[in-house]
């Protein structure tokens, strides 16, 4: 393999390479676009607050729409934090260490927007406090509120703790920092002295967080799947829904990390830190996760199709050959089968093809959530012969699209801002690794 990758040999080079940098021209344009779309989304959301959810295409029967599917998407993405910085870390997959920060930033942004999106879906966002003051512990929504809040805290800590030594390192070179950075880093790094005791406490804490984030991560997406699986609706009435959602989440999460690391590697010239090896390994991981997801998909669609229970028949027909068939097969084939086939080959796991496949997986995953949420509601258990057909043929309105795009841009904006403020690749870990390598050589 011919590469222009080098292993950095010098602490100063590492710090110079990895310190946060001000936006360039493209960076500023990117931020402007994100801010613009977020504001358009906000504008439409204000309209929605004023006029009610009537400005969406949702009606009785089609009670949930893309807000809820978008929520599921965000929750799914957020799971990647636990995958990379917990599961891989605990399994001592050292190669993934440079990716932990990226994964945690994505997780934090996604979980924040999951919470925002679900508030957007509420008919009475002004009464959100009822969820706390009148919390009813029997409701899966209450569990979701608890577990999402917990996950947000753990993710923030898991982002913050490994940052402490990095920020201390950056702070040693105040001449390269603007005033606000200096203050922020000083405040966040708590005068980190890099004492062995401190290191010990910090590493132990990170390990504890890495352990507890795994059940909480499984929790958020399992509970999210229960919002559907606890009902009687066709397509949702499944005991497999938890693992089905979790496996899908890991798959799209891995794809998101791949896309992000490709972009950051190009934008911040990180070829010496994110190697082809990383793409190769992430590609392998994505194949594995996609295969698991494929397995759950077969379970979810084949078994009901085999049984042909009355309530499920129309739902499945609509997906396989009906109104949603084109989207369904596009999502299943382009978002799952094709990625598996392409990524099996080594060439397919090179950065560019991997990026394309990852984007296919992400887009597919978004529409997949749409296909999970929307068509089921068009087939209630009672006959629909008197129902206004437009209520059963939900298609999002322009405000819904713009609000949704706004939330996606908002999440990207958070990631972008985090990257602006904090180092993308853990600096102290990279230095440590370099030292370890050099010690070995000696």
């Amino acid at each position, binding site marked *: 393999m011919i590469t222009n990758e080098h292993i950095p040999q010098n602490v100063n080079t590492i710090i110079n390479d990895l310190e946060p940098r001000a936006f360039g021209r493209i960076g500023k344009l990117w931020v402007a676009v994100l801010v613009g779309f977020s504001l358009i989304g906000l504008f439409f959301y204000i309209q929605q607050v004023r006029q*009610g959810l009537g400005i969406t295409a949702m009606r009785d029967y089609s*009670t949930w729409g893309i807000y809820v599917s978008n929520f599921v998407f965000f929750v799914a993405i957020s799971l990647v934090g636990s995958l990379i910085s917990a599961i891989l870390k605990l399994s001592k997959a050292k190669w993934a260490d440079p990716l932990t920060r990226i994964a945690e930033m994505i997780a934090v942004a996604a979980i924040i927007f999951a919470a925002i999106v679900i508030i957007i879906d509420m008919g009475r966002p002004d009464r959100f406090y009822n969820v706390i003051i009148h919390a009813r512990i029997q409701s899966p*929504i*209450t569990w979701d509120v608890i577990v999402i809040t917990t996950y947000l805290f753990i993710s923030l800590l898991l982002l913050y703790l490994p940052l402490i030594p990095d920020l201390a390192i950056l702070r040693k070179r105040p001449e390269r920092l603007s005033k606000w950075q200096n203050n922020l880093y000083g405040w966040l790094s708590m005068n980190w002295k890099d004492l062995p005791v401190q290191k010990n406490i910090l590493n132990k804490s990170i390990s504890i967080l890495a352990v507890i984030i795994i059940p909480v991560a499984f929790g958020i997406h399992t509970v999210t799947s229960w919002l559907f699986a*606890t009902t009687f609706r066709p397509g949702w009435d499944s005991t497999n829904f938890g693992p089905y959602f979790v496996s899908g989440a890991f798959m799209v999460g891995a794809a998101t990390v791949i896309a992000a690391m490709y972009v950051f590697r190009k934008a911040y010239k990180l070829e010496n830190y994110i190697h082809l090896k990383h793409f190769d390994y992430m590609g392998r991981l994505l194949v594995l996760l996609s295969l698991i997801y494929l397995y759950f998909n077969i379970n979810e669609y084949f078994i009901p199709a085999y049984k042909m229970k009355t309530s499920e028949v129309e739902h499945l027909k609509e997906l396989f050959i009906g109104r949603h068939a084109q989207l369904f097969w596009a999502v299943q084939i382009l978002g799952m089968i094709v990625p598996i086939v392409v990524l099996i080959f080594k060439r397919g796991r090179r950065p560019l093809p991997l990026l394309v496949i990852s984007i296919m997986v992400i887009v597919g995953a978004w529409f997949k959530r749409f296909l999970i949420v929307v068509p089921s509601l068009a087939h209630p*258990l009672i006959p629909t012969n*008197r129902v206004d057909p437009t209520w059963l043929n939900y298609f999002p309105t322009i405000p819904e699209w713009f609000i949704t795009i706004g939330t996606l841009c908002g999440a990207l904006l958070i990631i972008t801002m985090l990257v602006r403020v904090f180092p993308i690749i853990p600096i102290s870990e990279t230095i440590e690794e370099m030292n370890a390598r050099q010690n070995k050589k000696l």
Partner: protein
Amino acid sequence: MDKSDNNRRSFIKKAGLAGLLTGSTWVASDAFQSNQIEKSGKTVQLLSQDGELVEVDEAFLKPIPDIHISPEEAREGIEGRKFVMVIDLAQCKNLRKCHDACEKMHYLSPEKEWLKVLKMQDNELAEPYWQPTMCFHCDQPPCVKVCPVDATFKRSDGIVLIDNERCIGCRFCMVACPYSARTFDWSEPQIPLEIAEMPYSPETSCPPKKGTVSKCDFCPDKTRKGELPPCVTACPNGVFYFGDENEDAVSNGSVTVKLSTLLADRAGYRYMEDLGTKPRVYYLPPVNRAFPFEDDEYTRTQNEGHDH
């Protein structure tokens, strides 16, 4: 303080007499705030049933306003009751008077159908029939299970109500209800001004509130007064029977029958019994029908082949 309390009590008593005399609903107006009522100075004599004469200030003789049940009070059911409904499918010919009466009673806009008349067909060979459907006020309600804020609740009298001042509009209950009984105010509800200005009560479900869920409430404001819900009285064919399971009796407005006998003799069943929701609405199967099935324009033209 003591004295005014005494006064109040006596006013209630006296006013109650007027009620006895006329058989209509008269009572000292807002007896609990009688202190605030400006006395006219004129007293009138009333005759009690035991021939006793009492004197009451004229100002207290106003018709009873319907008792307002606050959202907190509405969480308690009506004492000792367990409301139940029986729907005789053999008598229903899709006149939709029940639907219209419900719409009128609750000031529903046409898209809010708390009471639907569904065209049912059990299998390809079976004759279709009409089935009025509303909230079944299940004893094990899946909608109440999932509510995150106690906005929808099960009462001791069997009724499932919604507190529209607490509902956060997440619509989980609508998704959880297998009978699609719940509706949502997607936009600001279009209602007459005087209804919009009424004090809100979950028992009347009025006035409706934007961004919240609503549904058939079994009209506790009516049943509290011993009156049948309007869907029951509006039906000219006596399809609906309504009553109290604790009394083992249901009435369709013209006859009162024993609930247990009716269900036993006519093979009463509940819709989707296998879901385990334990509805409080029973159906009598459409056998020995009073009318042949006639399709209506709406179901003929709309959604062909959408029957389950």
